[in-house]
């Protein structure tokens, strides 16, 4: 009986362990207003203020505080401190303001939906009304 309980516990642990990475590695959706056409390769430049127009449309990226850590890691490949410092330098040198920060996924989606040139990201599928540029 004891050994059966141990086996079951081990199996449960293994199952949990195998499921855990899937649960932690959340997906990230980067999207823009439906009027914006962008390539995934442009995203770094858009969120670092290097690319400010898509065709004739002025881009207006917004960060999403709820998913920012994942975005910085997966798209910009930098930590929050470097992101802040890089933007301070960019802003001071070129007179470009850093993206505003949205508080939740739903705020980020709503912003991109209703803002011409708006782009943001979320940890859940954004639904209709926006164009998904990258799913990471």
């Amino acid at each position, binding site marked *: 009986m004891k050994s059966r309980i141990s086996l079951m516990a081990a199996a449960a642990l293994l199952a949990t362990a195998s499921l855990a990475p899937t649960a932690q590695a959340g997906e990230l959706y980067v999207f823009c207003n439906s009027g914006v056409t962008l390539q995934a390769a442009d995203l770094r430049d858009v969120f670092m203020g290097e690319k400010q127009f898509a065709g004739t449309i002025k881009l207006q990226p917004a960060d999403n505080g709820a998913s920012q850590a994942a975005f910085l890691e997966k798209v910009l490949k930098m930590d*929050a401190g470097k992101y802040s*410092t890089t933007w301070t330098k960019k802003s001071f040198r070129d007179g470009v*303001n850093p993206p505003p920060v*949205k508080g939740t996924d739903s705020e980020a989606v709503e912003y991109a939906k209703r803002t011409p040139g708006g782009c943001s990201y979320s940890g859940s599928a954004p639904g209709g009304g926006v164009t998904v540029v990258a799913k990471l």
Partner: protein
Amino acid sequence: MHAPKRLSFAFGLALAAAGMAQAAPAPSASQRIDSLEQRLAQSQKLIEQLGAEVHALQAQIAQQAAARPAAAAAAEPAPPAAADQSERLASVEHQVEQITASSNSAHGEDRGLPLHGFADVGVGNHNPLTPANKGAAVGSVDFYLAPQLGEHTRGLVELNFEVGEDGGVGVDLERTQLGYQFGNTGTLWLGRFHTPYGYWNTAFHHGMQIATSLRRPRFLAFEDQGGILPAHSTGVWFTGNQRTGAGKLGYDLYVTNAQAIDGGVLDMRQAGNADGQVTVGGRLSFQPSSLDSLQVGVSALSGRIEDAIDPANDTRLNVFALHADWDSDALEALAEVYFFRDEALPGGGSHSSTAGYLQLGYRAGRYTPYARYERTALDQADGYFAAQLSGASYHREALGLRYDIDLKSALKLELAQTHNTDGTLARPDGSYGDALLQYAVRF
């Protein structure tokens, strides 16, 4: 200053720096925290609103259920409680959407104008900019804002308060630029701006917190603080960059009012000049895709510099410069070299001079030790240098240590030795040592 005194002073400063470092608070998470706290507060409000809605709904359902007679409930199956509930839930959902939309619109574009800036204060056996003074000193307080005035119209305004050699506070309209943005091609600015040559002048300028070292190389200092180049200009400037397969190409082209030397100091003639002379310049820089920590560039500028006191001493200033910057997570390396080929006007001879520096820094966590060597060899027969109070040659060796207290503030300690060479009666030769401490912040 005698060597033992100098050493003990430097030791004292180092102790003070160490003490302050230990007493420093833990690093803040990021500048986003304030913003996130605001969002959190708003989310809490939203939750409270929703909670109130749910309570009200539950109370209504309970009242209706209690009021409805059991027999009547059995006799009329048409509007069941479940249907009523889902209708009300749909209503709540709709209200939530409206609250969310309202919350989002409150965070729309019209969020006011963010104001940022820098400030620095220090103490040392010499003032870092005016070596005749010693003790504690205020460096400068600098504010800037960058309004996006329309889809294509931009602004950049910077106001600087700095303390002069006599202790008086001077106010400079550092930058006042209004520009039209031509898509991703570039922006055409009109106004007063930081002259785009080399690297340092546009990269750091008054932002001491974003510069690793405690001060600028002396020959690149501001016009009234020992610099020999026009750090500010008033005119038209086109700037932009293009990403190509090989890397990012940056370009700058400007035409400005020609500067003048007035009272031994370069003046950018921001109200215009009397003779309509112009200075023309440009810069090209390149950042390879395969090595994006590296930037290399070339600059050039040329203009007729008027000597306000002696018109016979006007000069055609011709400068060519090279710069390189390596900025990775660990290593920072900066180098700039300037070649002058000035012509005396009218019809005089030409004079060659050079100036340059090399700075290396290594980021080890919060500590960044750095070293810099700077040297100028300025032809004193060149009227351009002879007329400037800061026109004598010099070389300086500096060792420093930067400590990042947190993301927005840094403490810097610098020990340096400066040697003034080929001076005149007004600016005699001589050497002096510096032990300097600076507290620099950004906000």
